[in-house]
């Protein structure tokens, strides 16, 4: 049966309001872009089938609201995340400065088993705007931050023009898969110790 099982990879996109999280997801999944801004309420997700080394995976991409900290829907979507994508707008300094907060927020809420090695990917979005003239966060600065947080992969993207989106999500999926596999090796141990005795008393009262 495990051979038939299609692995589910869960990806969470975080970042300030208006940096283009929904657009990036839509560009990747639906190959569509809309200039019209519509704030995400709470959270929403899209799924995409991806193929890697002749195995099929389901990528479940969670797009979250940047404005309020999405308490309206709780934090359930963090559970079991395999990769976290941090997005900022290269034209808005504040959105870059907030990356650290988003990263910490994620580590608190998702509490991954190995926070130091949890896969993040950083995307500097909207590089197309004004031909790059309105840009305020340099690539160098962004890469330096990524390096300081344990060599987070970094991409400069444009959801509007589809620039680097596919490439970025390929790395996202690959890293998510790595994390998922480690998780699978790690989990059975914990199951045996905590759940084992409890289960025996109840499941087998036949």
């Amino acid at each position, binding site marked *: *049966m495990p051979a*038939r*099982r*299609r*692995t*589910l990879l*869960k990806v969470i996109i975080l970042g300030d309001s208006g940096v283009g999280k929904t657009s990036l997801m839509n560009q990747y999944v639906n190959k569509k872009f809309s200039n019209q801004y*519509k*704030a*995400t*309420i*709470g*959270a*929403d*997700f899209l*799924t995409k089938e991806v193929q890697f080394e002749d195995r099929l995976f*389901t990528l*479940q991409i969670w797009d979250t*609201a940047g*404005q*309020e900290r*999405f*308490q*309206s*829907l*709780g*934090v*359930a*979507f963090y*559970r*079991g995340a395999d990769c976290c994508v941090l997005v900022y707008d290269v034209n808005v300094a504040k959105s870059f400065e907030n990356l650290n907060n988003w990263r910490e927020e994620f580590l608190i809420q998702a509490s991954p088993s190995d926070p130091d090695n949890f896969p993040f990917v950083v995307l500097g979005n909207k590089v197309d705007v004004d031909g790059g003239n309105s840009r305020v966060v340099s690539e160098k600065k962004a890469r330096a931050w990524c390096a300081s947080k344990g060599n987070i992969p970094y991409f400069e993207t444009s959801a509007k023009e589809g620039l680097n989106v596919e490439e970025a999500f390929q790395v996202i999926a690959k890293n998510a898969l790595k994390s998922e596999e480690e998780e699978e090796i790690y*989990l059975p141990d*914990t*199951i*045996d110790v*905590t*759940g*084992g005795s*409890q*289960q025996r*008393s*109840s*499941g*087998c*009262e*036949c």
Partner: protein
Amino acid sequence: MKGVFSAPGDYIHFKSQVPLHKISIGSRQWRYYEFGPKVVPPLICLPGTPGTADVYYKQIMSLSNKGYRVISVDIPRVWNHHEWIQAFEKFLDAIDVHHVHLYGTSLGGFLAQLFAQHRPRRVRSLILSNTFLDTQSFSASMPWAPVVSWTPSFLLKRYVLIGIRDGPHEPFIADSVDFVVSQVETLSREDLASRLTLTSGAASIGPLLLSDTFITIMDTNDYCAIPRELKDQVSEKYPGARRASLKSGGDFPFLSRPDEVNLHLQLHLRRVGVEAKPDIGLQNPRDSSGGGSSDKNKEKEDSDDPAKDQSKGSPSRDAKNKEKEGANNDPSNDNSGEGSSNPTSEDPIHLAASDNDGNDGSKKVNEEIPKNTASLICGQLKPMLLDIRVVMETQLILATQAVELTQSYSVLYLLLSLYLGNLYNTQCHSLNCRQTV
């Protein structure tokens, strides 16, 4: 062994807040919970073979808190699929509900699809979880289906229970299994026989009029009693449906992964245009302009007493009621199984368990008060007589079971153990209780 199971604290809280309804329609008894604002089109939860209306208590509590209306039913005693469709339609008429959103898990998902197929105008959307399109494989694995209605209760229970995966589970899944097992114990022989008949009777889902965009498929990705091939058939039938897979959760994600399930249910309801009413005219989840502020309002609402939505009393009385409920909820933290003494409880194990409790009598009196205030808030005061009836009913069931056992035991025992032996081989590799058969 059974006494070991103690009702979880939040379940005790649920029982103190949400009244259990029992109505008879024709010859059929319907047992259901209903909670949340009446103006909202309801989400109706349909459990699987081992489930009761109670298994969705976490959904009822959480979604009603957010302003949705949730109804959770026991599958009634019907003996074929046609009867199910008619009975369910009459039930909806009786509770004055016209359009529904159905959330069905395993057998419940199958029944939801059947209803959507035959009564397309009433079903607005579907959430299908770990379910199937066709009963063929179940009837093939149940060659003893023709004698189901004669089979003694304990064998039916065992058959239902072996469908639940045994073996080490993580704590949340183990708890969910415990809860469902405790619910199976409350089911009568007829209940179980009827459900197994529905599972094994030949039927398959035809084309639905409902567009795929109104369907969400919420399967657990780890394992469940429904084979993967059957679940895949469901996904293939509705290619445009939304796939809200859960990484894990086992057979009962509504109990083991309640926050994720509730999130998906909420997202589904939002997508299909159900507007939550946490307070009258306060919240419109589709309103994109005021996302931030409206969500804050929503959060504030969450902490409020859910019963408040339906309160008809004055504010001061409301506060008093809350106080009493608060007092009632205190003991919910110690898991000593007093949830059983709720007046609406008709759970034989629970009753048996509380017999061992020395101070049960006094507790019962204490708990009846808040229960009734809760009923008052919801405008549905139930006569105390019901409790006595429930207890008598339980005893009657136990007595008939005992008689029935001695009668049919010897004849069917050998026969069924043969069948079950085969079933074990095919279905439960990891089961180690075969020798007890």
